[in-house]
Every structure is written in structure tokens, then in C-alpha cells.
């Protein structure tokens, strides 16, 4: 039944509903975004073609600062997710009693509705009564209350910490699964030859999970670049723009100020960066896979 034209037709028929859905809800809006980015669309029903005016306008509004901020924010968030996730996976992979329970306990930030976890962080960051400021004061590490979300610098890092918190479970469990799929014989052979635990980690575990690490870093990069809920709930991009990433900026302009055209130009910029990440991802993953098969 393979290869026949009939089979291909059947396959396309099976695919059609999902494909049409994606075309309607993702592909068409994507094209529409590009289209709108060259217009002065706003709340009123009619709009005109304005060429590249929106793009000129956003760069006059210091958009490059927003871009740089987004990259710094994303870079540190992904870095921390990967480092903490790898450490977590290594520890949960250790053959100690209770690890099944520990694995379950890792999951809540990932499973629970994101917004609700973020509310809890909102309280923890409260300067007067929140846990972080409170505990630091109790231990004498800071002198007075620190309202983490009230200052640009601390708000920037606070939103990163919350983003890391939400991302870590997925990274951990994914890497843990990668570690558990490494054949045990490898470790046993190395162990018989007298290789220590650290040496086995460096020479067996690490090389074997590199593909998973790369995949996860890229997926994490894309998700983090798109991160919206955390910043919107905690700071709405403030104080004075210090946590305004590209997504937040787009939302404020497009939905907050109803400037669809200008917002669309910003969204197009985001899409360009995302496409570059994706290209890089496919190149790297392609390399790893062909390298392994060879």
C-alpha cells in the first residue's frame, strides 16, 4: 500500500483539517501581520499603506534598546534554566531513595497555570511583607525592606528568576529522561575499568546528553524570547521600561494603544529574530544528527 497515489491522497485528506486550521489561525495572521506593518491601521475601520514609515518610527523610538534588553533578558534566563536544569537532572538521576517523589515535586511550576505561580512570586517580591525581603532582613543580609519590583535593576532580575523558575522543571525532566536513556552497560564498563563518578559523568553522561542539551537550549530560547505572562503580571514592562521586552512592547503599542500598524512592525521584528533562531536550530540539530549517524 506504500507509494501509491491513492495513499498520498488519503494522507492529504487526513491532514487537511489540521492543516487548514493552522493556515487560518497561524499562517494567515502571520501574513496579515506583515501586511499591517506597512499600514497605519488603528481602531478606525479604514487604513492606508504607509510604506516603511512604521519601521522608521520604531527605530526613532529607541527600539534597539528594547532589542538589546530582550536579548540580555533571554540570554540570562536560558543560561540559568539550562545550568539549574542540568544540575537538577544530575541530582535526580542519582540512585538515592526518594527520587521518584523528588521527580514529582519538580513538576508543579510547569503544570500549574502559569499566571497563578506568578501571583505567588508577586507576593514574594513584595518589599514590606514578602518572603524574600523578609527572610533576608531576618538573617541580617539587607538593612531595610527591598521592594524588588519597584526598581529597574532588581525588577529586571526578578522577572528573570521567575521565568527560570517556570522553565526549570521542563529542562530538568527532559534532561533526566535523556540521562536515563543512556545504556547502563557504558557506565558498568567504565566502572569495571576503575573510572570514578566524576570521570564517568564527564566522559559518558555529558557527551551523551549533548543533543538533548542543544535541543532544549534552542526550545528554551524560543519560549523565553516569547515570554509574556511573567513580565505582564509582575511589572507590565516597568518600572520605567526596565522590563519592557519586545513582546511586552508590542503588546503595549498594539493592544494598549490600539496602534495596530506600529505594533505589527514590532511583531514582524520578533518574527525575524525567531526565524533566525529556528534556522540556527535546524542547522545545529542537523549537524548533530548527521554526525551521530556517520
Amino acid at each position, binding site marked *: *500500500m506504500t507509494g501509491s497515489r491513492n*495513499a498520498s491522497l*488519503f*494522507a492529504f485528506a487526513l491532514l487537511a*483539517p*489540521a*492543516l487548514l486550521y*493552522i493556515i487560518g*489561525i*497561524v499562517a*494567515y*495572521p*502571520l501574513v*496579515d*501581520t506583515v501586511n*499591517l506593518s506597512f499600514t497605519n491601521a488603528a481602531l478606525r475601520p479604514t487604513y492606508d499603506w504607509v510604506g516603511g514609515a512604521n519601521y522608521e518610527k520604531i527605530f526613532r523610538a529607541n527600539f534597539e534598546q528594547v532589542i538589546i534588553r530582550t536579548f540580555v533578558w533571554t540570554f540570562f534566563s536560558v543560561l540559568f534554566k539550562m545550568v*539549574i536544569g542540568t*544540575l537538577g537532572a544530575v541530582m535526580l538521576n542519582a*540512585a*538515592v531513595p526518594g527520587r521518584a517523589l*523528588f521527580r514529582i*515535586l*519538580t513538576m*508543579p511550576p510547569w*503544570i500549574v*497555570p*502559569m*499566571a*497563578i505561580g506568578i*501571583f*505567588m512570586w*508577586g*507576593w514574594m517580591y513584595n518589599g514590606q*511583607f514578602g*518572603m524574600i*525581603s*523578609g*527572610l533576608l*532582613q*531576618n538573617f541580617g543580609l539587607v538593612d531595610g525592606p527591598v521592594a524588588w519590583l519597584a526598581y529597574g535593576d532588581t525588577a529586571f532580575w526578578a522577572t528573570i528568576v521567575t521565568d527560570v523558575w517556570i522553565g*526549570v522543571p521542563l529542562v530538568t*525532566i*527532559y534532561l533526566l529522561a*535523556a540521562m536515563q*536513556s543512556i545504556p547502563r552497560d557504558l*557506565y558498568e564498563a567504565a566502572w569495571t575499568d576503575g573510572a570514578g563518578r566524576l570521570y564517568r559523568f564527564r566522559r559518558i553522561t555529558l557527551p551523551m546528553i549533548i543533543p538533548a542539551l542543544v*535541543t532544549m537550549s534552542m526550545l528554551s530560547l524560543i519560549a523565553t524570547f*516569547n515570554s*509574556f505572562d511573567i513580565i*505582564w*503580571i509582575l511589572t507590565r514592562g516597568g518600572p520605567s521600561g526596565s522590563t519592557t521586552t519586545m513582546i511586552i512592547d*508590542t*503588546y503595549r503599542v*498594539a*493592544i494598549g494603544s490600539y496602534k495596530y500598524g506600529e505594533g*505589527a512592525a514590532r*511583531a514582524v521584528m520578533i518574527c525575524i529574530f*525567531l*526565524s533566525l533562531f*529556528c534556522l540556527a536550530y535546524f542547522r545545529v540539530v542537523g549537524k548533530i544528527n548527521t554526525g551521530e549517524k556517520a
Partner: protein
Amino acid sequence: MSNKPMIDRYKWYEVVGIYAGIALFLFFVLAPFIEGFMVSLKPLSALFSSPYSFWPKNGSLTAYFTMWESVPGFWRYIANSMFISSVATIVVLILVVPAAYAFARFPFPGRGALLGAFLAVNMFSGAVLLIPLFRLMRSLGLLNTYFAMIVPGVAFLIPTAIWLLRTYMMRIPRELDEAAWVDGASRLYTLRRVILPIAMPGIIVVAITTFIGAYAQQFIFALTFNSKTEFMPLPIGLFAYFGRQEVVWNELMAASFVGITPVLILIVFLQRYLVAGLTAGAVKQ
């Protein structure tokens, strides 16, 4: 300890180190929930007092009773969340089961590119497409209805679901299809009567992960496309409450806990499936 293979034995200081590390790690992961729970037990006066104390003095469950009045429509929010997630999951399954089967079984031209195109959807968040989606929802007359949250939500749940189910279906032996084919069964009959029953465990895994994804991600579409209180899902309902001038934190936390309890229970029972679902496509088979 003694019946463990030698390779898995740790020296005492290694065990201490591992547990200390795990404790630190889990503290980071669980701290907001622990703190949130403590807050839900504290009376407001104790909450807004210094110095900070972690343990609730005069702790009580009062907030869990008063919140039903302070957050009017709380039940409604939870029911809305469940309803939106359930409908989204059903729609995703209807679209994804045939698509995954097509990808798993038929070597049609352009298969790789199409699969890539589906996965590329994961690249965009809803936020990027918000403007045209808003216009689309408006012109379809769906703004301020459940569908304004379900229709865009489904699109972003499809890629992962296809990927997971395709991986599962590729493990079903091809001989089964071929045997049915030889016996004269039509392709559709084969899919319905041969493949679907065997793929059921995989479909259930996909249903669970989709449901949880739909439940976890209810924010941006609900924030932007719906302003009617009676349709709000839990996160947005609580967010509206959170946005008020004087946040009644203990009640907000109590409400959050009641709201997430269903998913927490799900984790305990279904974590095996969640991990299987998550890693099916990821780790190389």
C-alpha cells in the same frame, strides 16, 4: 543499601551532598507554593506586619471560607477553565489523530516539509499574532465568547500533539495495517478499527498533556479577546482581582490553591504519562 549493585553505592558524604543539593533545588521549585500556602493561612493583620515571619501565627483556614464571597464567581472561573481546556482538548484530538496517522504511515510527497511547518508553529507565541488574531476574532464575531479563547488556543496546542502522537503511532507495527488491507478493509476502516484501539494509550497521553497545556496557558488570549466576567478562566479571573487597589493576599492565595488543586492531583496520578508524553519525541528512540 546492601542489595544495591556496587556501582550505585555512595559514600556517606556523597549521599549527604546529593540530598542537600536536591533540598536546595526543590526549595527553589516549591518556595512560592510553600509561601503561598503560609500566606493563605495568615490573617491579614499578621500578613501586613513586620518583622517578617514565615510561620503563620494565629493561622487559620478563614481565608478559604471568606474567599467565596470576596471572589464572586470563583466557581464559575474554575468551571470556565475546565470547560475551555476540555473543548480545546477535544478539538485538538479531532484534528490531530488523523494528521498524526498520516505523518506516521504514508510517505506522501512533502511530508518532511509539512511536519516542519507544523512544528514551526511552536516558534510563535500568541503574542506575536495578537493583532491579526484580534481582527480575525472580531470579524468572526467571536470576541467576548468562549471561542475567542478556544480557537486561537487550539492552534498552538496542535504541533506538540501531532509530534507526540506521530511518535507513538510509528511504533505500531505496519504489518497490522497491511493485514487489514489484505483482508479488504478500507483505509478509513483500518484507521478506525485497527489503529485507533491500539493507539488509545498514546491518544490518552496526548489528551492529558494537551489538557494540561490548555489549562496552564490560559492567559494572553483570555486577557485580550474576552472582557466578560462570566467567561473568564481562573487565571484571568484572579488577575482581575489581583489588579485591584487593595489585594486581599490571603484570600488570593487560598483561591489560587483551590484553583490548582485539580492539576496537582492530576500530577500525582499521571506523572508517569506526562513524562512519557514529554520525552516521547524528544529522546531518540
